[in-house]
């Protein structure tokens, strides 16, 4: 499993092609936070087609990781 690091001063993630499941997935690991997420082909395709505005919303720190609304992580 060849791992590549994509890093900037703002974030560091390791990406690799995971073949352990029945189909291939992209494995993304947040090297600063330790969390891992797998994205399958359909999810990745959806990211490619995500409207710019929706992607931008994901970058809002309160959109997920640093939310103070009940139920959010």
């Amino acid at each position: 499993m060849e791992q590549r690091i994509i890093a900037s001063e703002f974030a560091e993630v390791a990406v690799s092609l995971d073949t352990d499941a029945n189909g291939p997935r992209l494995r993304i690991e947040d090297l600063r936070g330790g969390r891992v997420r797998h994205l399958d082909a359909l999810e990745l395709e959806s990211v490619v087609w995500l409207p710019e505005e929706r992607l931008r919303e994901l970058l809002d720190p309160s959109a997920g990781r640093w939310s103070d609304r009940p139920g959010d992580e």
Partner: protein
Amino acid sequence: MTVRYSELIQPERVHGSLYTDPGVFAEELERIWYRTWVCVGHVSEVARPGDYVRKAVGTQDVIMTRSADGEVSLLLNRCAHRGNLVCEDARGNSSSFRCPYHGWTYRNTGELLGYPYNQGYGGKGKLSLGLGRVPRVDTYQGFVFASFAADGPSLKEHLGAAAGELDRLARLSPEGEIELTAGWLKHRAKANWKLLVENETDGYHPQFVHGSVFSVTGSHIGSLYSDKSTAVTRDLGGGHSENDLRPEFRRMGTPMAWFGTSEAKVPEYVRKMRELHGEQAEEILIEGAPHVMVFPNLFVAEISVFMIQPVAVDETVQHVTAVQLKGAPDMNRRLLSQCVGSVGPAGMLLADDSEMYERNQRGMAARMPEWLDIRRGVGRERVDENGFRVGTANDETGMRGFWSHYRSLMEREDAQ
């Protein structure tokens, strides 16, 4: 205390305090560096969406970015929350910037995208804040210029005749574009920024300061600035000046002699240029690149580009990179090696100059004589066919032009 610039700047001499007085430096920041057009970088440094580089305008820390729609922005590197530096790296690629202090996150256009735990602010999008943006940004031949003044002369007006010199640089590329992609060297000098600017088109010093280099390398550059030279120093107006070496290169009449080489060494480049320009290629290949100081901080020295950054009254950083001609890989290799040889860490030209800048600053600590002399050649100047003042290759015509413009900016009554 009010500085009376009209007394300190005279036609044939300038007062030493202009280089040593911290009060003058503080006023220069406001009246020159945060008002007139200042060169920040080149669009080729942020070629792709998300690219960013850290730059400076005067002592201001600025981020030059390329957004998704291709627009180049100049953002102030200061979080709108608590004033922290948002970007730390010299360069990178990121569509958004996240302040490391509290996580406030900005688009690379400066727009605030969000902040953590937003209920403390009443929810999402409740703050009309963002990164500061330099009010006016414009480009010429890919060079990016900034002006902190919301109104004032356009970049084209500011550049005036100096624009033609940047055109002359760009036309040396077979694709009509230069690129500044070779990376930057930073030379820190304990000297006032104006000493560097004045030195750039001072044709009087090369035979002394660079004499040893010329003798070792057998370079013809020294003779271009001798009293027998037909080259001229030209006051281009607006504080810009040049050493126009074309008369000497035309006299030689040899393509690529300006570059100290022959066409046999760069056959592919010469072929492309002849194919593109036809008969006019000879003129372009003979006349070569400009040697021009664009007020207040962009210096094109044929093969190298310098950006002068004032840090303090007695400290300046000179950023240097090699000119790269788009579509000319064979030339670019030579341009890079020549640039490194002349202004690199072990380069032979800028090391000499830096020594002079610093000795100059130390010398001016002496109380007498109080003035610096800038009269050389004043009695033999002429006005050329375009109305510009011209001196010989080693006259101080460029310096006088610089000081005349400097004075007009520093004396303005509406100065902040």
